């Protein structure tokens, strides 16, 4: 018995010391294959190890919140720019301007945050659905799409919330009321909303993230990505260095790496728009999409109210 305990204690101490050897810790929302490629590329080019925790924005934030008394994260990559604004306001971020950020548009960098890449919302439409190809958001409220439209849940997707807020600011709640009257449903987070469209249960996603749809189409799924001419929301994904980080120099090197030619090529490879405008990508770029800008300072304080009204419209 005593020997077993001794062996267990030894094994435990080995495991604990192994965990302490991490060089930097990156928490990332967004594509898992992207953050894995970036972490291994970073280690190859700098010799610094990057430990990664990947999840949805909510899971990442829940972990940071629960860890607040003993935080371990050095670099945070969120899928929502709102995080960067909020964390900056709380004074949790370190100011840093990467030398590689020169060609990142001003809209996608601040004193304390810079975009890793950008995604846009689109109509993801299944051509095999037997419906006419939609061109505009309002098309999806037409009789052709009766019971065939799914919306990502704006409580679970920051970009969806911004699309709801932008549309509501332009035209009030009419479009969402029309969509509901036409049998549109809320379908979970982004990938969950895409699934019924792939199988054909639904014909189109109203405002799904484009990179998931591009990746699915590339794999051979019957899917088209349509950016309405009236405009859409883009979601830059901010990278931030936390002020409690004990490895701030290495954290800066990580930001530099993500914004390097190699790092941005990895971003483009998963069908996100690279943050740097001088990097090529096999998909429409910011200049090809009409972007609706929202007044974040006016929209976000009313978030709960907007979400409650949206939920009520859809009978929740």
């Amino acid at each position, binding site marked *: 018995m005593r020997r077993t305990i001794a062996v267990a204690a030894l094994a*435990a*101490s080995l*495991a*604990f010391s*192994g*965990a302490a050897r991490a060089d930097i*810790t990156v*928490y990332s929302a967004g*594509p*898992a*294959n992207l953050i*894995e490629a970036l972490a291994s590329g970073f280690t190859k080019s700098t010799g610094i190890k990057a*430990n*990664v*925790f*990947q999840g*949805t*924005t*909510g*899971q990442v*934030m*829940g*972990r940071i*919140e*629960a*860890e*607040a*008394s*003993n935080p*371990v994260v050095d670099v945070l990559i969120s899928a929502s720019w*709102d*995080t960067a604004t*909020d964390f900056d306001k709380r004074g949790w971020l370190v100011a840093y301007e990467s030398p590689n950020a020169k060609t990142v548009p001003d809209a996608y960098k601040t004193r304390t945050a810079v975009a890793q890449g950008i995604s846009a919302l689109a109509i993801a439409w*299944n051509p*095999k659905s037997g419906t006419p190809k939609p061109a505009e958001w309002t098309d999806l409220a037409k009789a052709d799409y009766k019971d065939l439209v799914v919306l990502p849940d704006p*409580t*679970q997707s920051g970009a969806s919330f911004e699309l709801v807020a932008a549309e509501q600011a332009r035209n009030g709640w009419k479009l969402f009321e029309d969509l509901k009257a036409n049998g549109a*449903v*809320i*379908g*979970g*987070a982004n*990938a*969950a909303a*895409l*699934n*019924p469209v*792939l*199988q*054909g*249960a639904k014909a189109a996603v109203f405002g799904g993230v484009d990179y*998931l749809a591009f*990746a699915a189409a590339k*794999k*051979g*799924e*019957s*899917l088209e990505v349509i950016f309405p001419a009236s405009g859409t929301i883009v979601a830059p994904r901010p990278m931030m260095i936390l002020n409690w980080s004990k490895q701030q120099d290495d954290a800066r090197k990580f930001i530099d790496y993500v914004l390097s030619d190699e790092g941005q090529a990895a971003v483009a490879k998963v069908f996100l728009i690279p943050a740097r405008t001088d990097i090529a990508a096999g998909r429409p770029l910011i200049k090809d999409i009409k972007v609706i800008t929202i007044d974040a300072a006016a929209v976000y304080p009313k978030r709960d109210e907007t979400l409650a009204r949206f939920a009520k419209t859809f*009978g*929740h």
Partner: protein
Amino acid sequence: MRSGQQTADQQTAGPAVWFGMAGLLILVAVPIAFVILQAVFPELGRGSFARPFGQVAAVLGDPALLRLTRNTLLLGVCVVALAAIIAVPLGFLRALYAVPLAPLWDVLFLVPFMVPPYIATLGWIMTLQPRGYLAQLTSLHAGPFLFSFAGLVFVMALNLFPAIYFAVSRTAVAIGSRYADVGRVCGAGPWTAFRRITLPLATPALVASALLVFALTIEEYGTPAALGRQSGYLVLVTAIETRTADWPVDLPGAAILSLILVLLSVGAFALQLKILAGRSFETTGGKPQAFVPAPLGAMALPVLIGFTLIALLATGVPLFAILATALSRTISGGLSPGNLGFENFEALLSLESGGLRALGNSLALGLATALLTGFIGAMVAYAVVKTRFRGKAVFDALSMLPNALPGVVVAVGLILAWNRPLPLSPYNTPFILLLAYSCILLPYPIRYANAALRQINDNLEAAARVSGASSLTSLRRIVLPLIWPSLLSAMLLVFAVASRELVASVLVAPVGMMTVATFIWRQFEQGSIGLGMAMSTIALIVTLSVPLAITALTRGMGGIAR
């Protein structure tokens, strides 16, 4: 005799009570204490005790709370009712009659328990929604039914009915037909004998398993999230999840809602005690008797049809959907020969995807959890059943509490408890997952070992002590071998459930470490459903074959699930 037994108790109590107590404190009391502290002190995460009860009024004053609680209760009651309607007749038939292919049905009904609920639900969606697999095969679909309260109850009951089926059938076998036969001899008809004798004797197992189904229903996240959201049917767990996954994160709110959930479960537990109070159900007082199940006669065909129908629904549909999706090149390609291939399995087995590492992690964690909970569970059960000490009732209740805690709350409690600047903290190591799984699953071994221990006469241990055995020796040589079959069953169940646990894994997994469930969840989130289903297939084969192999090796020592 009385005093001799007391002496034995006092001497054997030591190690078992201490191991059990220490295990319960570390695994269960610590995370629950931090959840309660978090509910009371909203700033606890930042190490501050400011604004005590600052959040309670706001959360309890939310008008939606009443609706969430009512929805949760209604869902729990309806799922229990439907699961019982399915499981009770099947369980009694399986126990009392010679049902054709009996072992096959046991294995098939084990599958729904081993398929992670979120996967089974996704399988149902992909089968029943318009243009789903059913529509592709028959041009029929059941979308409106599936995305409704009825659909939610239907899917959850089919996932959970095995808990009642196994409890009822194993207990009914133990009761045997002796008592009913006596009734028959005294002139009762077969139906009267069943209704007045067999059914009442099976009540404890029936009530206990119904309580388990209720607890599992109200703490399940995946199915209500996938089916309930579309129909606007929200429950407490979905609200808890929203509070932990929606920035700004509201951990105090999540903790308060969790405590409401715990109260619902404790209420159900109290109801169970009330139903069973003051009655004796002892049936194993004498020597075991050979029990020959009665022939079904003309009922054989209808019974066979009933078993087949339930197996097709509960096991066939989810398995078919998982396999069909895993073997499809694209989802939009549907069930056509040209669209089938092993690409997803090849991608999974390529080293890049990390799928194999995740599988290895989950198997190792599942094994470690089974061993740890088996050991502590046996000690706790021994302390509760065979010894007397102060605070035993608290000890007993504490051992059942994790049943009512949603995984997400256990995870938050563990982070709050262990993510501190301690010299040796399990946080950010695989040990935190071991702690999480052990906390969530400890009630299974405790329950199973408890039931087995109640059947062992104290004289056996007393005899060993009189013959000069030390307390540990009698524990090791007499008690453990006698409860081993039950304990093994529980540990196999723990292994299967731990190796696919999702909700806690997502939050507490150390950086850089993946498990089967987080791998699958990640694939779903990235839109790679085929890859996720390929992983589910392999994980299912492995987690199902390990228990079956162990059962085959230890044949005659007890069933897989009871």
